[in-house]
C-alpha cells in the first residue's frame, strides 16, 4: 500500500547508507535495486562523524546502518543520530547486521532505532523493510518479535514504576515534600518530630528508590509531585 502511495505521489524514499564493509554494501545496493521508488542519496563508509554530517546535510528519509564488527557504543551512536534526526522529524534509522540479544534490541529501540534487518533474512525483503521504516512502522525479524515485545513491555512497566513516586512510604514522601520546600535536615527533623539521623536514613532510602544522589533532584521530584 505504502509502495503504491509513494509511487503514486512520485516521491522517492531517500536512503542514506552507512557500511564499513564493501561486500555488505554491495549486497545492500543489490537488494535495494528491487525497490524502484527507493533513491540512494548517499553512501558513507568511513566514520560516524561523516555519517552524522551527511544526515544533517542530506536529510534522508531512511538511514541504513551496517557495521561489519559489533560496536560497543552502538547505542550512543543511535542516540546521536536520534538527536540529529529528532530535529528533522523524518529520518528513520534501521540497523543491518546479525541480530543481537533481545535485551540489546530493546535498548537500541529506546535509543531511536526503528528497525533491525537480520543478515539471515532474504535480501529481497530489504526493500520492504525500508518501505516499512519509511511509513513509520517497525521492522524486526518475525521469529524474534514476540520475545522482544515481551521484553519491551516489561521494561516499559519497570520504567513507569521507577518514574513515579509511588514507591515511597508515606513518611519518605513527607520528607521529600520538606526537601521540596527547601528545608534542611535539621528543620525536617524538628517539623516531623524525628531525629536528624532518622531524616538522613529516610533521605538515603529515597535516593535509592528514585535512583539519584542529588538533593536538588529530590526537590524537583517534590515540585513535580505537587504539580499533578
Amino acid at each position, binding site marked *: 500500500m505504502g509502495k503504491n502511495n509513494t509511487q503514486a505521489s512520485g516521491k522517492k524514499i531517500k536512503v542514506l547508507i552507512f557500511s564499513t564493509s564493501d561486500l555488505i554494501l554491495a549486497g545492500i545496493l543489490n537488494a535495494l535495486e528491487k525497490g524502484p521508488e527507493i533513491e540512494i542519496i548517499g553512501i558513507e563508509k568511513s*566514520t560516524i562523524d561523516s555519517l552524522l554530517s551527511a544526515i544533517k546535510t542530506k536529510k534522508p528519509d531512511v538511514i541504513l546502518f551496517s557495521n561489519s564488527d559489533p560496536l560497543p557504543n552502538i547505542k550512543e551512536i543511535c542516540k546521536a543520530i536520534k538527536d540529529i534526526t529528532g530535529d528533522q522529524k523524518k529520518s528513520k534509522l534501521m540497523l543491518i547486521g546479525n541480530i543481537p540479544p533481545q535485551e540489546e534490541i530493546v535498548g537500541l529501540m529506546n535509543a531511536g532505532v526503528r528497525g533491525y534487518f537480520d543478515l539471515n533474512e532474504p535480501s529481497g525483503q530489504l526493500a520492504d523493510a525500508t518501505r516499512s521504516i519509511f511509513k513509520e512502522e517497525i521492522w524486526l525479524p518475525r521469529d524474534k518479535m514476540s520475545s522482544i515485545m515481551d521484553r519491551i513491555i516489561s521494561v516499559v512497566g519497570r520504567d513507569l514504576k521507577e518514574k513515579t513516586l509511588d514507591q515511597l512510604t508515606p513518611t519518605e514522601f513527607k520528607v521529600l515534600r520538606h526537601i521540596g520546600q527547601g528545608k534542611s535536615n535539621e528543620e525536617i527533623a524538628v517539623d516531623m518530630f524525628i531525629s536528624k539521623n532518622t531524616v538522613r536514613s529516610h533521605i538515603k532510602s529515597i535516593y535509592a528508590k528514585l535512583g539519584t544522589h542529588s538533593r536538588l533532584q529530590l526537590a524537583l521530584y517534590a515540585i513535580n509531585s505537587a*504539580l499533578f
Partner: protein
Amino acid sequence: MTKKSNPKKENSNNYDILLNRRKEWRLDIPISATVKGKLPTGKNFSEKTKINNISSGGAYLGLDAGITVDTKLMLFIEIPSKLTDGKKTKLSLSGHTVRIEKAEKKDKKNNVAVRFDKEYKFLD
C-alpha cells in the same frame, strides 16, 4: 609546519563525543520560571517563561531574549503553593547556556539549554 592529525582520534571515529549520557532523569514538566541574565549588549534582562524540562543537571526552556552560548543565567522557579502550604518560596538556580536553537518562526521563542552550576538556594 603541517598540522598532523591525531591518529587515536581518527581510529576511534570520534565516538567520545557520543558518550555524553545523562546521569539524572529529566522531568518533563512545564514549570513557570523567571530568567534573569545579561544580553550580549551588556543590558540586563528579566523574562518570564516556561521550562520545558529540567533535571538537577540542567534545563531546557524557551526565551525571547537574544542571548548567546555561555551566557550566565539565573532561574527563579516558583514552588507550587500546594507543596509549600501557601507560603511563597522560590528555587533559585544559576547556570550557563550550552546550546541555543534559534526559533523557526518570528513569534516563537528560541530554545535554550542551560547547564546548572552547583549552587542553588531556596528564597522566601
